[in-house]
Structures are given as structure tokens and as C-alpha cells.
């Protein structure tokens, strides 16, 4: 499809969300663009205590494959003109972008839905695990049933 742009990337290094959105915007003339960027929270998800950094582990090979599958499902279902899906792994500082999802479509309903489906599914259907590192030690972030339900709701 002319103007079709897909940027799907699992990466160790940091990225600039606005630069990627600019690339999507300039490459695709679609009327609606929606995006979500998740960043490292300053406090632990369970402890509420300040954290120093976040460590993200992934299953090499499988994580890329699952990301691609989620992106292709979104692309087909909402007939997207373009999409961006970026996810970091490794050690991240507080405030750094972890994940970016963006969708370009002809109408806002499709762009919002595709963007939300991609982030919901990244949380529960792609093999990533987060570990919070703080002054008093580190702990694995527990999975939340609300996240699993959100991803489940997008099953066709």
C-alpha cells in the first residue's frame, strides 16, 4: 500500500517518541493519528517507594515475533495506514520512555482503538518482565489481572 509505514522495534537504547511520531506524520497522509507513550514510573508499583531504575527482561526471538503479530493484527483489523510499536529492554532510568504505540487511520475511532489494542496486548501477550530497582533492593513487578483482561477483550 502506498504510504504504508510500519516501524516495529525491540531495542536496548533509548528513543525519541516525538521523532518517531514526526516520521509517521510525514510519511502517512492519514487523517487521524493516535499515540501512547509509557515511561518509567518514579515509584515502585507495589512498595510505593522511590525507585532508581527499571530492568526489563525479554525472551529473545519470541518477544520480536509476538510484537510483530500484535502489530499485524492491529494493521489488518483497523486497516491502518501506518503504525509504530517500539519497546525497550535492559536498564532504564526513571522518566525514560519504555514503550510507544501509534496508529494512523482515516478516522479517530480506528486510530484510538488500534493504539489502545497494541499497548494492551504488549502488556499481556509479549514476553517481557519488569524488575524495579530501589535503594533497599529490587523486586519483580507482579502481573495485574486487569491488564490480562484488557488484552483478552481485544480477542476477535
Amino acid at each position, binding site marked *: 500500500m502506498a504510504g504504508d509505514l510500519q516501524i516495529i522495534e525491540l531495542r536496548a537504547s533509548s528513543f525519541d517518541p516525538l521523532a518517531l511520531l514526526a516520521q509517521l506524520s510525514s510519511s502517512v497522509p492519514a487523517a487521524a493519528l493516535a499515540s501512547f507513550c509509557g515511561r518509567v514510573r518514579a515509584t515502585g508499583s507495589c512498595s510505593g517507594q522511590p525507585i532508581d531504575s527499571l530492568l526489563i527482561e525479554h*525472551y529473545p526471538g519470541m518477544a520480536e515475533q509476538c510484537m510483530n503479530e500484535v502489530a499485524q493484527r492491529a494493521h489488518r483489523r483497523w486497516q491502518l495506514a501506518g503504525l509504530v510499536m517500539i519497546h525497550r529492554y535492559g536498564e532504564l532510568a526513571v522518566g525514560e520512555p519504555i514503550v510507544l504505540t501509534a496508529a494512523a487511520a482515516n478516522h479517530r475511532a480506528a486510530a484510538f482503538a488500534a493504539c489502545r489494542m497494541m499497548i494492551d496486548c504488549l502488556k499481556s501477550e509479549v514476553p517481557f518482565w519488569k524488575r524495579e530497582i530501589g535503594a533497599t533492593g529490587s523486586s519483580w513487578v507482579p502481573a495485574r489481572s486487569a491488564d490480562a483482561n484488557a488484552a483478552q477483550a481485544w480477542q476477535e
Partner: protein
Amino acid sequence: MIAVRVLYFASLRERLAVAEEQVQLAAGSTAADLIDALAGRNDLHRQAFADRSQLRIAHNRRFASADAALADGDEVGLFPPVTGG
């Protein structure tokens, strides 16, 4: 017999203090049979596999259920529920 490559991730990898193991199983074994065999290896493994409600299975890099049939040379990933995004 079949040989299966098992990969552990996140808290399960830490608990077992190993990232990868090779396991020999009878032909026709399922993922559940593999986990039974792993749990029987030693006390550390028995404890780590005691609560299977929190265990997720990937068979050749796709999410799978415990009844997945394994073949020689397959890769099985075992890990806790994922927490990306």
C-alpha cells in the same frame, strides 16, 4: 526418547539459578510431562514448580497450554506471567 531445550525467564530463572537446561523425555510427552520431570529433579525445582497457576508456557516461541505435544529438538520457555508495556 526426545530431547527438549528448556529456557527459564525472570523470577523463575532466578529461583532455579539456571537459565537453560536440556531434558530427555519419553516420545509422546507433553509440556505437563516436562514440568513433572523438572519438578522431580531436586528440592529447588520441586518448590519452583509447586504453583503451576503462575507458570506460563511457550512452545517453540508461541504461548501454549500444558497439553502441548513435544517433539525432539523443541524449545520450551517457562516463565511467570508477563509484565511488559
